[in-house]
C-alpha cells in the first residue's frame, strides 16, 4: 500500500484522479440530474447556452446539450475502460506466451503483432465496425482488437527480462508448473508497467470511440460525445456550443486519464519514486 500512499503525494496524478472522479460522478448521476432522455427535444432548435433553462444550450433539434454531455460520459467511460480491458487481455496473453516460450512461437506471434501495428488502427477500426453492426459490444471489441499490440510488446519485453531471473529458475527447480510460474511469479513482477500502459489505453480508446461516432459509426442508440460533435460540426460557425462542450469533455477526460496514468507510472517505477523520496 506504499504505492497508494505515494500516489496521494503525486500532484499531477492527484489532479488527474480528482477530475476523473468528477467525470465518473457526472456519469453516475446523469439520470437523476437529467431525468429526460438526452434524445428528447426539450426546447427550440439552436437555443444558446443559458437560455430556456438549458445550461449548455440546445442542439439543431432542440435536444439538451448538457444532458448529452452527461450521458455521453457514461458511454465514453464504459467503452474506454471495457475496451482497454479487452486490449489488456489480448495483449498480455499474446505477449506472455511469446515472451515465455520464445523461439518459433514468439516469431509467429510477433509477426502477427507487427501486422496489426502496420495497419493504421483507425482504418482497421472503421472496417471492423462497418462490417459488424455498430453496437456497444462490437465497438468495445473493435477498439480492443486494434489497441492490443503495444501491450503485447510490453508484456513480451517484461517476460523476456524476467524469464531467466533466478527466482523463476528456482521456482522451476522446485517443481512448479508453467502456469503457476507465469501467473504466480512472472506476471506479478511485470504488472506495474502493464497497468500504466492500460490506463493510457483507456484515453486512446475514448478518442477512438469519439472518432468512430463522429464518422457516424457509433452505436445509434447511445448519445456519445463524438456523435454530438459530428452532429454539430456543420453549424459550428453559428452554434459553437454544440460541438465545443462535448469537445471540452473529451479533452478534459483524456487529459485526466493521461495525468493519472503518468502519476501511476511514476509511483510504480521504483527508480523514479526512489529519486522522489
Amino acid at each position, binding site marked *: 500500500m506504499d504505492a497508494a500512499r505515494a500516489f496521494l503525494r503525486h500532484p499531477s496524478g492527484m489532479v488527474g484522479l480528482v477530475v476523473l472522479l468528477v467525470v465518473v460522478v457526472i456519469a453516475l448521476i446523469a439520470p437523476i440530474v437529467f431525468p429526460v432522455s438526452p434524445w428528447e427535444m426539450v426546447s427550440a432548435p439552436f437555443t444558446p447556452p443559458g437560455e430556456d433553462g438549458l445550461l449548455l444550450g440546445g442542439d439543431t433539434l432542440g435536444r439538451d446539450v448538457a444532458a448529452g454531455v452527461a450521458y455521453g460520459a457514461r458511454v465514453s467511460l464504459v467503452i474506454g475502460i471495457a475496451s482497454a480491458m479487452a486490449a489488456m487481455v489480448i495483449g498480455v496473453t499474446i505477449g506472455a506466451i511469446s515472451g515465455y516460450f520464445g523461439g518459433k512461437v514468439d516469431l509467429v506471434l510477433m509477426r502477427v503483432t507487427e501486422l496489426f501495428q502496420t495497419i493504421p488502427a483507425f482504418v482497421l477500426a472503421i472496417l471492423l465496425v462497418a462490417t459488424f453492426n455498430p453496437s456497444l459490444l462490437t465497438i468495445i471489441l473493435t477498439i480492443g482488437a486494434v489497441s492490443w499490440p503495444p501491450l503485447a510488446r510490453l508484456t513480451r519485453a517484461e517476460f523476456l527480462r524476467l524469464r531467466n531471473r533466478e527466482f523463476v529458475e*528456482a521456482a522451476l*527447480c*522446485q517443481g512448479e508448473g508453467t502456469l503457476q510460474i507465469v501467473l504466480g511469479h512472472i506476471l506479478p*513482477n511485470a504488472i506495474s508497467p502493464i497497468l500504466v500502459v492500460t490506463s493510457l489505453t483507456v484515453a486512446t480508446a475514448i478518442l477512438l470511440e469519439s472518432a468512430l461516432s463522429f464518422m457516424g459509426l457509433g452505436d445509434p442508440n447511445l448519445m456519445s460525445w463524438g456523435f454530438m460533435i459530428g452532429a454539430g460540426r456543420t453549424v459550428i460557425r453559428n452554434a459553437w456550443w454544440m460541438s465545443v462542450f462535448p469537445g471540452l469533455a473529451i479533452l478534459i477526460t483524456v487529459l485526466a486519464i493521461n495525468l493519472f496514468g503518468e502519476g501511476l507510472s511514476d509511483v510504480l517505477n521504483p527508480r523514479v519514486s526512489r529519486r522522489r523520496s
Partner: protein
Amino acid sequence: MSDAVRAKAPVLSVEGLSIALPEGGDRPFAVENVSFEVKPNEVVCLVGESGSGKSMIAHAVLSLLPKSVDIAAGAVIVAGQDPAKLDRQALRRLRGGEAAMIFQEPLSSLNPLKRVGRQIEEMILTHQKPMPSAIEVHERVQQLLTQVGLPNPKLLEKSYPFELSGGQRQRVMIAMAMANRPALLIADEPTTALDVTTQRQILRLIDDLRRDRGMGVLLITHDFGVVADVADRVVVLRHGKVVEQGTVEEVLRSPKADYTRELIDAVPKARLDEIRRTAVHPTPLLEVIGLEKTFRVKRGLLQPPREVVAADGVSLTLYEGETLAVVGESGSGKSTLGRMIMRLTEPDGGAIRFNGQDLRQLRGEALRQARKQLQIVFQDPFASLDPRQKVGDAIARGPMAFGTSRTEAMEQARKLLVRVGLNAVAADRYPHEFSGGQRQRICIARALALKPRVLIADEAVSALDVSVQAQVLALLAELRQEMKLAMIFITHDLRIAAEIADRVIVLQKGRIVEEGATADVFTAPQAAYTRDLLDAIPGRDFFDQPGFASVTGALPTARMSS
C-alpha cells in the same frame, strides 16, 4: 618546507570526519569521528563490511559525496587542501591531478564510446598547463600504457573498452589515474570484480607504481587477504566508526578489538590437517559423463559466430554425502556445469546419470520428479527470491507443488526457517526486509524444503560479507551432516573450496585440469594452472603461516546474521 619535511607530511589526513546521512536513514551518521593519515609511499587499507561507510570516506576525499549527505564535522586534507572548501576550478585541479581514484567496476568507469587512448589523453590535456603538444601527449600515453603492463600499447590505445578483458580495463583505469603523477591514489575495491590471478597482478602493479613514485595509496577492501598482501597500515571500520587502526603486523597478528578478530577468523582458510576424509558411501549418486557445451554468439552478417566452450568433455562422479568443489575463474564454465546438471541449460552432448536414470532423457513429469532431488542455491540472494512473494510461501511452494497440503507445508517452512537460523515469523515477511545473508539462508531453506539428495551451491556465498560468509558456510556444513546431503560447491574462491570440500575439481575453459582430494590438490597441485590459482590467493603467505590456523580454531557455529 624542506624536502625532508615534505616527504614525511601526510598526503591525506582525515581529521575527526563525520558525514551525516539524510533523516530517516538507519543511522544518523554514515561515518562518525574518523581520523587517519596516509603518508607518501604508504598503502593504507580501509577495511570493513558492506555498510561500514568505507566508500563514503573515499568519496569525501574527492568531494564526490551525493547531494543528500553532508560533512557534519571534521575535515579531509588532501595535499594541504580541503576539497570541501575548494571552488570548482581548484577542485578540478585536485581531482585527477593531486589525487586520483579508481573504482570497482572498470567497465562502467570507462566511456564505452571512446577509444581508451583518447580517454587517457583527455586526462592529461585537462590538467597539464601549458597544453603539451600532440606528440608529447601521445608519447606520454604510450609510456603510461607500457608502465601499467599492457601488451602492445600501440594497438591497445586504439581499442574500445568492450574489447578489453576486466584486468586490462582496470589497468587502463590505473594508467588514467597515473597520468598526472598524483600524490594520492584512492582505489575503491579495485580487484573485487576480478579473478584471483588478475587480482594479484593488479595489486602488484599498484604496489610497484607506489614504490616508483612514492605516492600514498588509500585502498578500500573487504578482503583481509588483500590487506595482508599489500597494506602498510590498516584502518578497520564498523558502522562508520573506526574500530581499530595500526600497522598490518599489529592488527592482523594481535588484533585488539573483538570485531577485528572476528573478521580475521572469518577469512576462509585451508585447514588441510583438519580435513577428514569422510567415509563416503561407495555407490555413486550422480555421474556426469563427457558433458559438452559450446555457446555460439552471433556476430555480424559475414563474421563467423564467436564460440565459447563452456564444457569440453567434463566428467565427474558425486558420491552420497560428499562435498565436491568446482573451482575456476570466470568463463571456466563452472556455473554452466551446475546449470546443466539442473537441466536449466541444455548440454550439447554427454550424459548426466542420477539414481540410475539419464537426466538428459527425461521430459515433463519425470523431469519434475527428478529435479525434486536436485536443488540449487544461486549466487545473488537478491535476484533469487521473488520480491512479491512472502518468504513462507517461497519455501512452501515446492512441497505444495508435489501435493503437500498448505498447512503442512507452511508448518514445515517455519521449522526450516528456524533451522537455518531465522525466526519462524519471518515466514510472513517479504524478501526485501532481509539482509543478504538472511536471504541466502532463506534460499537454502527453500532448496532443502524438498529434501533433496544433491544440493548445488552456485557461488552461494560469493556475494556476502566475510563474516556472513563464514556463518553460511558453517550452516551448510551442518546441514550436510544432518541431511546426508551430497553437495556440488561451485566457487571462484579457492579458500572457500578448501574450507568446505572433500574433493576438488579445477576447471579451465570448460576442461577439467585437475581433480583430487582437497588436501592433495592444495598441498601437491599437479597442474600448472592450479599452482597459479593457489599462488594468487590473497594473503596466502600471511594466513598459511604455521601456527596461525590453530588460533582460528574450528568452523564458527551457524548463527543469525546481522
